[in-house]
């Protein structure tokens, strides 16, 4: 709707009359100015003999788009077309489902609850006598037996129940800038970290509720061999966090950790500052400590597991964890009874689809079967329908 100068007055009149008072859209505006033009065309048409030009400008374009005649694909969903699809889906899904189910079943998983709720539990006393202020760690040992050997790499998880890591107040209580090594954020953590933002007037590093509640039980695994000796099973503590988290998202504020964290305070519930998380390995210390990174990835559900250690496969001949007796030694630092929580240790092997979870396999088999069944039903219906419609056509 471009309005040239000569049209202006006409346009104005059109405007006054053609427009509604309130919220008239541009459409109307365009329509009226269009109208104005054409009336003006009438007025001046004869003198300029521009009738042909006027015609041309007003005749709608005969383009496929404007005439709503764009070439279009009109898919027809009939029993005939859907039928093969159902069979195909069924035929693909059922094998996948079976594969998933089998591989999930092949995964070996062992789970042990070491919360210490029952008096029979070795950790009962540790759980009962827990105190934030105690300086000596409480250690308890759990004996368990693996009926079957664990081949290939074994992954050791700790599991927590009724722990709301996905609570909003908790989830947001962190400062990713600080964790990324930002100096200003280190000294001035985000307000979201409240009430774990400062202690004793110093900023907390790492701030926030998530960091503050870092899981700090130490789990150690011993194999009791046939002559009753305790063999320490080497636990690898690297490779448990996402690569990108470890290398990009989390960064220390400086090379010299002690100096870098000068002027900050440790989280209130921690026993040692962040730069002493793993003094043995500078690549796993400070913010880039993998246990810390794993903990910082908040779980989706109140019952969750987190990767703790990896037990590497030693050779092809011996299983990683042969069947037999084992001892789990726990340095019991983490209280969960106050909120009715549970702690578990899980040993699991992993397949291509991840940990043990029969859900996906069952779901695939079910959906595949349903599709297959529907395919059969549709086949019958299709046949019936075709004959019926044919017979219906005849009397007409």
């Amino acid at each position, binding site marked *: 709707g471009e309005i040239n100068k000569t049209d202006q*007055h006409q346009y104005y009149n059109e*405007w*006054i*009359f*053609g*427009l*509604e*008072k*309130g919220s*008239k*859209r541009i*459409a*109307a505006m365009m329509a*009226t100015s269009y109208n104005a033009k054409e*009336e003006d065309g009438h007025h*001046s048409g*004869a003198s300029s003999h521009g009738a042909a030009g006027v015609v041309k400008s*007003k005749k709608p374009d005969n383009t496929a788009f*404007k*005439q709503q005649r*764009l*070439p279009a*694909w009109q898919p027809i969903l*009939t*029993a005939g077309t*859907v039928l093969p699809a159902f069979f195909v889906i069924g035929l693909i899904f059922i094998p996948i489902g079976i594969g998933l189910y089998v591989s999930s079943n092949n995964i070996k998983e062992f789970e042990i609850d070491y919360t210490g709720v029952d008096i029979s539990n070795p950790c009962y006393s540790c759980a009962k006598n827990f105190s934030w202020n105690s300086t000596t760690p409480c250690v308890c040992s759990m004996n368990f037996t693996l009926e079957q050997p664990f081949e290939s790499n074994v*992954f050791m998880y700790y599991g927590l129940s009724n722990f*709301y890591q*996905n*609570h909003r*107040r*908790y*989830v947001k209580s962190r400062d990713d800038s600080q964790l990324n090594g930002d100096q200003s954020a280190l000294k001035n953590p985000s307000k*979201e970290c409240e*009430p774990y933002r400062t202690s004793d007037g110093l900023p907390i590093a790492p701030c926030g509720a998530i960091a503050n*509640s870092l899981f700090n039980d130490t789990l150690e695994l011993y194999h009791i061999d046939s002559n009753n000796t305790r063999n320490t099973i080497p636990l690898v503590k690297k490779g448990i966090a996402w690569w*990108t*988290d470890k290398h990009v*998202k989390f960064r220390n504020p400086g090379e010299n950790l002690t100096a870098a964290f000068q002027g900050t305070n440790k989280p209130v*519930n921690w026993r040692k500052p962040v730069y002493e998380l793993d003094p043995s390995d500078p690549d796993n210390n400070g913010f880039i400590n993998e246990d810390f990174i794993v903990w910082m*990835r*908040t779980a*989706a*559900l109140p019952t*969750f*597991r*987190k990767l703790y250690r*990896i037990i590497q496969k030693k050779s092809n001949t011996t299983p990683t964890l042969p069947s037999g007796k084992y001892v789990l030694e726990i340095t019991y630092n983490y209280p969960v009874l*106050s*909120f009715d929580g549970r702690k578990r240790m899980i040993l699991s092997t*992993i*397949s291509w*689809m*991840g940990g043990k979870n029969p*859900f*996906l396999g069952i*779901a695939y088999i079910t*959906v595949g079967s349903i599709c297959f069944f529907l395919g059969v039903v549709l086949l019958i*219906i299709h046949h019936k329908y075709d004959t019926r*419609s044919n017979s219906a056509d005849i009397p007409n």
Partner: protein
Amino acid sequence: MLRRRLNRLLGGDERRVDSRTIYVGHRSCSATEAFIPPKFCDNRIVSSKYTVWNFLPKNLFEQFRRIANFYFLIIFLVQVIVDTPTSPVTSGLPLFFVITVTAIKQGYEDWLRHKADNEVNKYLVTVLEDGGRIQKESEKIKVGDVVEVEEDETFPCDLILLQSSRDDDTCFVTTASLDGESNHKTHYTVPDTEKDLESLNATIECEQPQPDLYKFVGRMHIYKNDQEPTVRSLGPENLLLKGATLKNTQKICGVAVYTGMETKMALNYQGKSQKRSAVEKSINAFLLVYLCILVSKALVCTTLKYVWQSKPGQDEPWYNEKTQREKETNLYLKMFTDFLSFMVLFNFIIPVSMYVTVEMQKFLGSFFITWDKDFFDPEIKEGALVNTSDLNEELGQVEYVFTDKTGTLTQNNMEFIECCIDGFQYKYRDASSELDGFCVTDGPVSKLQQKAGREKEELFLRALCLCHTVQVKESAEQGQGQRDGLIDEVDGLGVDGEVVHPLQEQRGFIASSPDEVALVKGAMRYGFTFLGLESKTMKILNRNNDVEMYELLHVLNFDPVRRRMSVIVRSKSGDTLLFCKGADSSIFPRVRREEVERIRMHVERNATEGYRTLCVAYKILSAEEYAQADAGLREARLALQDREEKLMTVYNQVETGMSLIGATAVEDRLQEEAAETMEALQGAGMKVWVLTGDKMETAKSTCYACRLFQRNTELLELTVRTLEDGGRRREERLHDLLLEYHKKAVQDAPPVKAGVTRSWSSAGQDYGFIIDGATLSMVLNSSSESNSNRYKNLFLQICQNCTSVLCCRMAPLQKAQIVKMVKNSKGSPITLSIGDGANDVSMILEAHVGIGIKGKEGRQAVRNSDYAIPKLKHLKKLLLAHGHLYYVRIAHLVQYFFYKNLCFILPQFLYQFFCGYSQQPLYDAAYLTMYNICFTSMPILAYSLLEQHICMEVLLDNATLYREIAKNAMLRWGPFLYWTLLGVFHGLLFFFGVRFLFSNPALQDNGQVFGNWSYGTIVFTVLVFTVTLKLALDTRHWTWINHFVIWGSLAFYVFFSFFWGGIIWPFLRQQRLYFVFANMLSSVSAWLVIILLILLSLLPEILLVVFRKPRGPHARQIAAVTPLSYKHLKERE
């Protein structure tokens, strides 16, 4: 002194109520009284709504008056004030976007208005002041200024014409920009004003400004030295309206009477009330449901939260302590803020973007109507016009069509067919067979059959030549300056052949009604040519090529109430003659009885053939009679109050005792494809009512011709004639007839299933109903209130059971009354009015959808309509194809929007049960914000613009398909429930599918675990893909745009997710999604669950499509278009 002043002031105030006094040239009339210039508003036109200063507050205020905007503002404010789960940005950004876009649009529109205002207000005009001519800006004109206007200029304000450069004290004006009538109208100077305007001493008393363009009543007092002031009446013929253009006149002078916002043009600017479509009402109803869902969700969550927290250790475990402030907050305040937080968390269920999308869909969609080349009419070189895009979908919902007859069903292209003089029929057609015993017609007309006596014939033809208000277009001298567009409407004579005088070939006639042109042209064929009106003298070229001169004394204008017009002329010989022509019903009672019988037969026969008939009568006025009439007319014209009524009485007095000389028959041909269109509309289940001012016989024959009435249609007539048949009192007869018809059409008719419109071809008897204006007013305004209501109900019930209804002899207001009555009847059906003339405006405005036809009766109908089309035949495509598609599109759009937001928010709601009711959002803020704006908006917009679930040809061929969507079929509670359940199903599936997957969060083959953001991202991915593919499944018409947009938005989602998670975003304290999406894709399990859930969600939909079977009596036609049997359709082709 003070008291006098006070009196004056009060008096002035009193006067203000009904009239205003204007001092021409600001000169006081009498020397005795001090001249106090009265205050009137200035001539500034302000059509703009805003100024620079008040734009922001005013515009914002107006925008937030919309309930939806206000709701979103509240949500936004809650987010800002209360500590809520999502950042204010998530709802603030879309709101800001919407508000800004609207503000920019409105600002631009207002800027254009300002520009136009300035153009007009700063326009230089010449004002005669203090003996000189001064150039003034238009906005500085005051009431009382004498303004000079030159040819082709528009009048800067409403002027009383004082002086014209033309000799005959007239000027010509076009009001094309006011009412669209492009003919030249003659306006007259006030008689007896002095040539020298400087010395003119006069006051004008006129009514207060009022918007009616065709009404003006005033009086001018002219003071001459010490004489008693002469009084002249002022009418609309003296008033030049602002906005009109001066033509054919070099210059005029006039005095400003109304200025600025008080001009008739500005007063007409008062907008019409906005029409709302049924879809909008449905949206609001659904909105309410969703609002309830929202509130109950928030309530449930708040309650559960406090129940959950009451257990020890849950509210504040050691790892998740509250801040000091939270601890101190009052419990009830906390509950309230929690409730608000939940509201905010779930507010996406009512999407701000839906309003934007609906608006855009309507705005963009309406272009397809203007672009449609099928609506282009080569004759007038115009296509369809869309005045409002709000009602596109309403075109698919029409149940009642009210159509005008003349110009709508018929072409309004009048052709003189025959006349009847003194009982003898004259037909201008070669070799037509004898039609009745005593009348023969054949041969060329120049030799009239000598049957009726030459004298009578000539009298009749003179009457035709004199009794009209036709102007001759001066094509020879001034034609070059004229636009040739006029010729179309003018009907050059050369076309018809048989032209005696070659000079007349260029002659054209301009008249407000095409009948008159037809009659004058008819008379010309018989040898009497009207040469024109010059300074009150009408010239006629008679058969002997002599020029006859008649002095035109009075014109008794046509009006629809009297249904006749007259002229009083004085012939050369000094006789004063009155010629009158009009409808038979208005002429017959005013002529001698014995004359009537001879002509009535012809008139009735002509009427049944569908011709428009007019009767012509005359009378010779004696000197006293004329004097009396003249005095009466002058007096009535001077009256300031009730002028109309007074004039009417005088007219009625004068037009009596005439003698009938003949009748004319003019054919008004049916519009192209009128019958097919009407048949299609009826086939589509619409009830067609013809509302016309024409007489019953003519209208009836038109109805038969349009196949509105079929041969087997039983006509139920309720007219003055049937009422008078019984010989009893009309009221009683009306009562009986109504009951009888009601019994016939309603009670005895086979019961109609509710919700199903009756099949037009069903075996039952078809009824047609005929009512006339007089009877209708009896029905509507019956003497007693209870009767009136009862009659109205009976009448409505009868009408609803008739296939078509004909209402003849309707006044314009009655048309609107009928529309209103049907509109407000049970079930509030959607009505559509279509008409072409000013008399249809009222019903066009009244109906849900008003359609104007770009016909010959000016542009008022077009201007007031919602849609304008060049021809009646276009209505079929407009309704059956465009309307149907628009309805399906927008209905789907609305349902889909609610659906997609339900299954968007439901997982978030369910997640609350797993996160301790802590308002933790499931999705990242970016996803929350972008979901409606970017990821899922374009496919549905493309769908709602391009979808053709049934192709246009099929829609046009099978009118019955229109019934499929009747009664808002796709937006009723049934479909709404279906969509809602679908949304709930999908939401549950998404959430719990992923929930079970996350029972072991170790989903990667390296044993690493996924967190809550991965959970949300998987759900969101499934969600985006499912809702998009669901739409893809519904799309029946895949153009490249659909492909592009559907696959494009999925690709965009993936791309965006990579991008959003691929960077450590500076300035953000939380990097929640860092590499979450990429990690998700590295997990086989995530892939598998996404595929499974998408497929499982769509499975029922696919099944439904396949299993849906055609049902009902039209199974075959429907079968032709339901997807299942598209195949068969193709086969048939």
